Every structure is written in structure tokens, then in C-alpha cells.
């Protein structure tokens, strides 16, 4: 494979969308004829039936895609919920959403005493929480999902563990939400 073919291969690999001939030629600072020749070489490499990835020409240009041979394995790898251990930040955010839902992101941050963008983002991405409308101030509200219940083995939301078992001062009378917010404000000042 010559250098131009290598570069074209890399560009097709990186691009999520099909890339047209003229955009390839522009990026490679080569003529379209040269790119066409490189694509022919690549096509030999990516001949269908020999590789896990194939070169396709579709409307709008060229693209690399996986061969159907890998479909089942891909489903096993990627469609199964990802369940790496939760980081402490993620566990805190998830617990806040689970017990206070629906709850907004600023509230989560107030309870934790620290900005919680990335942890909340990861929980959304993994499908453990989802949006559930907006607060009267326009902030997005979050609640837990069905997947959350399955992954925690909870039959219903009211099957969450009783907080009083973990509460450092179980005699406190005010509501959980107020107490969490108060503790969070104190934490933010440390």
C-alpha cells in the first residue's frame, strides 16, 4: 500500500459519514484520479468475505463498515448494558436521583457540594437515569430508568433501601431533600 492509500484508509476509518471523492482529494492534497487509484488498492485489501471491515461505495461517497459476519458478537459486546463498577461520584449522583426523583442537575450539584456534570452524563449515557420533564425554573429533571431497576435488582422504586439504616442522625425530623441540601451547602464550604 502506498502512502496515499494509507492516508485514504485512515480518513475513511475516522469519518463517521461517507466521504466524497472530492473531499478525499482535498484532504490528501492529491488529484481525484490518484485517490481513485488508491481506493482501488484499498478495495483489494477490504474485499468482501475476507475481512471484518469492508469498503463500501454509497450515496455520497466511500465508507468503511463492519461485515455482517460480526453482527452477533457486536450485539453481545455493545448491546449488553455496560456495568463497570460505579465510581463514588456516580454512586452519589445516582443515589440522589433515586431517592429525590425527579431532581434537577443543579440540585444534584448542591447536594454533593461539587459540580457533577460528568458523573450525571455517564449515568445518562449508560441508561441508568433519563430526563423527565423540566422544573418550573426550566432545569431538566432526572429520574431513574427501568434498566436502573433491573441492574439493582429492584422490583419497584419503593424497594430502595430504607435510608434510616444508613442515616448518621436518624432522629432528624425534616425531609430528606432539605437535610441533603443543608449538608451539601456545608460541604461546599469546606
Amino acid at each position, binding site marked *: 500500500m502506498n502512502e496515499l492509500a494509507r492516508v485514504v484508509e485512515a480518513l475513511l476509518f475516522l469519518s463517521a459519514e461517507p466521504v466524497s471523492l472530492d473531499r478525499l482529494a482535498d484532504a490528501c492534497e492529491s488529484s481525484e484520479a490518484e485517490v481513485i487509484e488508491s481506493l482501488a488498492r484499498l478495495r483489494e485489501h477490504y474485499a468482501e468475505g475476507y475481512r471484518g471491515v469492508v469498503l463500501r461505495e454509497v450515496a455520497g461517497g466511500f465508507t468503511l463498515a463492519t461485515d455482517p459476519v460480526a453482527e452477533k458478537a457486536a*450485539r453481545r459486546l455493545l448491546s449488553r448494558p455496560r456495568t463497570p463498577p460505579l465510581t463514588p461520584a456516580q454512586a452519589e449522583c445516582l443515589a440522589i436521583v433515586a431517592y429525590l426523583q425527579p431532581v434537577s442537575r443543579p440540585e444534584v450539584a448542591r447536594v454533593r457540594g461539587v459540580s457533577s456534570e460528568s458523573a450525571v452524563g455517564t449515568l445518562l449515557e449508560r441508561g441508568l437515569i433519563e430526563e423527565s420533564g423540566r422544573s418550573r425554573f426550566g432545569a431538566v429533571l432526572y429520574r431513574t430508568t427501568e434498566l436502573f431497576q433491573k441492574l*439493582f435488582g429492584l422490583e419497584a422504586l419503593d424497594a430502595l433501601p430504607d435510608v434510616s*439504616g444508613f442515616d*448518621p442522625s436518624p432522629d432528624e425530623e425534616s425531609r430528606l431533600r432539605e437535610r441533603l441540601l443543608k449538608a451539601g451547602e456545608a460541604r461546599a464550604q469546606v
Partner: protein
Amino acid sequence: MSMPAPLELEMDLEVFQGPFDLLLTLVLREEVDLLEVQLADVVLAYIDHLERAGELDLEAATEFLVLIAALLELKSRLMLPGEQGEREGPEPGEAADELLARMLEYSRYKSAAAYLRSRLEQEGGFRYRAAPLPPPLRRVSVDLAEPVYDPALLGEAIGSLLRTPPRLELEHIARPQVSIEQRLSHLRSLLGRRSSFVFDEAVKGADRLTEAVTLFALLELYKAGEAEWEQPEAFGKITVRACGPSARAVEG
């Protein structure tokens, strides 16, 4: 002995990553004699720089002062005449060791940082694919989900979030409630009763702040022509006397 020429502090503080960086450079500069460095200039310039950079917080400033204090102490020890056996506290060698240890620690991470930067640059040519999954693979299947997480994790997280952090001990800097007005009326009532008194009586049992405010109130009375005082010797008794209309009324 000729005076050493004042050292020009030609340093662009913008380029330093922090006080250690600055000190390392300062100490390692061949042409700089540590004795000649006006550390006060360094302190002022650096604090100034932090302030301009919008980075001046208490933590940073305190840290820098601690550092400079260590250097100052070292410097003052170096400047002491070389008498033996009369010094208290750490020997200059020890003071230097303390400072040296922290500079070395910093210098380790400064080099590690340089390594990371160059490594990132070397890696710059490797790009990873970040394309969304083909649509059929996008939906996570809830049916395939099995219980893997312990619900107690959530209870524990809430329990720890309910814990209020230990309160900072602020009592020693809590401001006693004392105002000029209070102390003014206190002094006026003393003067009203006796026409003269000793200042110590006016602040008997009071804390230092109250003492200071009372003294300030006294100055106010003097300015208004209501009182004058006398202190025959330094650190002696201060006798306060009423003057003006109210004093005459009492005398009369």
C-alpha cells in the same frame, strides 16, 4: 565594604508556574546571590501577579507566604554573624533541607509534567475513531440486564451525603459584637457619673478588640471636645477627664 548593587529583578512572572518554580529559578541563577535578592520585592511582585491573574485566593497566598517565610528564615540565618552555639531552632542546614525537600518534590512533578506534554505530542498522530454505533446496535437491551449492583450502595451514598462535615472552629476569630456607639455611651456614662476616670477601669475585663474600640471612642470624644486625657509616662495610667458643657455642669 562596598554595598552590593541592588539586584534588578528582571523576571517575567507570567512564565512561572508557581512560587516553587520561581524560587527554583531564583536559587539556581548563577548570577544571583541569594543574600542580595530583595525577597520583599519578590513577595510583592508575586502577590501582585497572582492578583492580576485573578488567582489570589487565601490558600494560594498563604502557601506562598509560608514558602517565602522559609526562605526568609534561611536568609536571615545566613546573614547572622557566624557565632557558634547561640542559635535557637533549626541550623541553617536544616532550614535549607526543609526548603530543599519541597523544591525537590516540586521539581520532580515539573519534570514529570514536561514528560507528559512531550508524550502527548508524540501521540498526537494517533487518532481514535469516535463514530456513533450503527442504528441496530444503538439500543441497549433491557432484557439482557441482570442485577449486578447492590442497592445498599445507594443507601450508603445517601447516608454519607447526610453527614455534615465537622464544623470549622471559627470561635477564635468570631467577631465580638462591639460598636463605637456602645463604647461612646459607656464612656459618656462614666464621665457623667465621675467627671474623671482611669482608662483601665473603662475596659476592665474586656477583650482586645473592645479595648481598641474603646480607645477609638475616646479619640472621638476628644475630637468632639467632650473629653481630654493625660498620661504622665509611657505605658502609665491614662486619666480621662470630662471637658465642655457637660463637665462644667458636673463641676458646678
